[in-house]
Structures are given as C-alpha cells and as structure tokens.
C-alpha cells in the first residue's frame, strides 16, 4: 500500500513538473495574463478608483472579495488558537 502511494505521488509530481514546460516564461509580455487583465488594471486604475497605487486598488477594490476572506482566514487562525490554548480563568 505504501509503495502504491509512493508511486502515485511520484507520478503526479512528474506530471506536474512536466506540465510547467507549457507555462509562459516568467515576465513574458505575450502571456495571456499580461494581455487582458494586467494592462486594463494599470491603465484604468486612476480614472476608475482615484488610487495612485495600482497594488492597493487591485487588493482593495478589484480583488476585494479575496482580501476580505484573507482577513477572515487570519481571524479564524486567531480564534482557533484562542479556543485551543486559552484557559477560561486566565
């Protein structure tokens, strides 16, 4: 059983590494992500949101839903540590 697990893990890993050969090279201006979404954000951030920092506008506005649940994840981590460790008399 252990051998099957090892073989399947190695197989999946080799498959994933092999799959990265089809990725666009790092920073490629012709990659799909660099052709649609990124130029739109960079060009229209200031006129659409009045935020001069494109990173903040993507983080807080265009991708606000993602950031909201990042906050919730941190909150959950704190709540879990409190509920596991903290004693009621403290």
């Amino acid at each position, binding site marked *: 059983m252990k051998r099957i697990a090892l073989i399947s893990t190695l197989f999946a890993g080799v498959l994933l590494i092999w799959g990265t050969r089809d990725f666009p090279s790092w920073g490629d201006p012709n990659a799909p992500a660099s052709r649609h979404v990124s130029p739109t954000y960079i060009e229209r951030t200031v006129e659409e949101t009045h935020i001069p920092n494109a990173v903040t506008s993507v983080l807080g506005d265009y991708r606000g839903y993602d950031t909201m649940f990042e906050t919730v994840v941190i*909150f959950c981590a*704190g709540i879990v540590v409190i509920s596991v460790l903290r004693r009621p008399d403290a």
Partner: protein
Amino acid sequence: MKKDHSLPQDRPIGPSLIIEVAVRIMIPFIQLFGLYVIAHGHYSPGGGFQGGVVLGASFILMAIAFDLKTSLRFFSLRANAVMASSGVFIYSGTGVLCALMGGLFLDYSALDAIIPLGPVEWRSMGVFVVELGVGLAVTSIMASLFWDLSSGGDMDKGL
C-alpha cells in the same frame, strides 16, 4: 509609561535597564510607523496587513522586553477580542452596506448615496475604510497569537 519595579526575577537574563529604556523609546515610533503604513497605503507600499503587523509587533516587543503582563496592561484581552471582531465586521459590513445601497457586494461606489463624494472618489475611500478594518483585525490577532503561544494560554509568563 509608569515605572514598574515588580519585574519577574526568575528569567534567565532578568530585567535589563538598557533593553527596557531602548524599547520604551522605540515603541511610540513603531506604533506611529504602523499607523502611517496603514493610512498611507494608497500612495506607497503598505496597507492594512503590513501596518497591522507592525502595530502588533510593537505589543509583542513590549511583551518580550518587559513581560506579558505589561503588554496586557496596555492592550487588554477584552479590547483585543473587540478589535479583532470589529475589524472583520468593518470589512464585511462595508460590503453588505454597498449591497444594501443598491450596488454589488463590495462595490464601494454605491456608498455615494450616503455621503455624496462622487462614485469614483468613494472607491478610493472605500478601500481606505476596508484597510482600516484589516489593520484592526491583524493588529489584535498578531498580539493575541503571541500571547497565547508564548504563555501556553494562561497569560501568566511569556518568553
């Protein structure tokens, strides 16, 4: 800060005058820098997460340099829990408020119906409100994580 002479004597190093004076000088500047990073996230690298971590680190530094009780005197457990919850509530509440005012969830331009600043300006202001919520939550969770993990949950003696 009130001088506390009842410092624990059973620590390996014991109270050190140099460390305490240095930390006492540093903490106001660290906290001011944390607030600056939160408030200046629109113009420079920074925002709620980074500024919150800096603010939380000031309380962790206080707990390391003095002891855990000292940092609890400046940031009580009740205030900590209230701040963490209200931070998340501010973020999600802003989103719900946007939806109630007729926009989409987290579409800050809908808040123009409450305070007329212009829809585009409100998208900038909405990000700031949301970053404040993130900063509150991250600050208190960072401090609370350190307190619980370093003292094993009894809030008596830290590192």
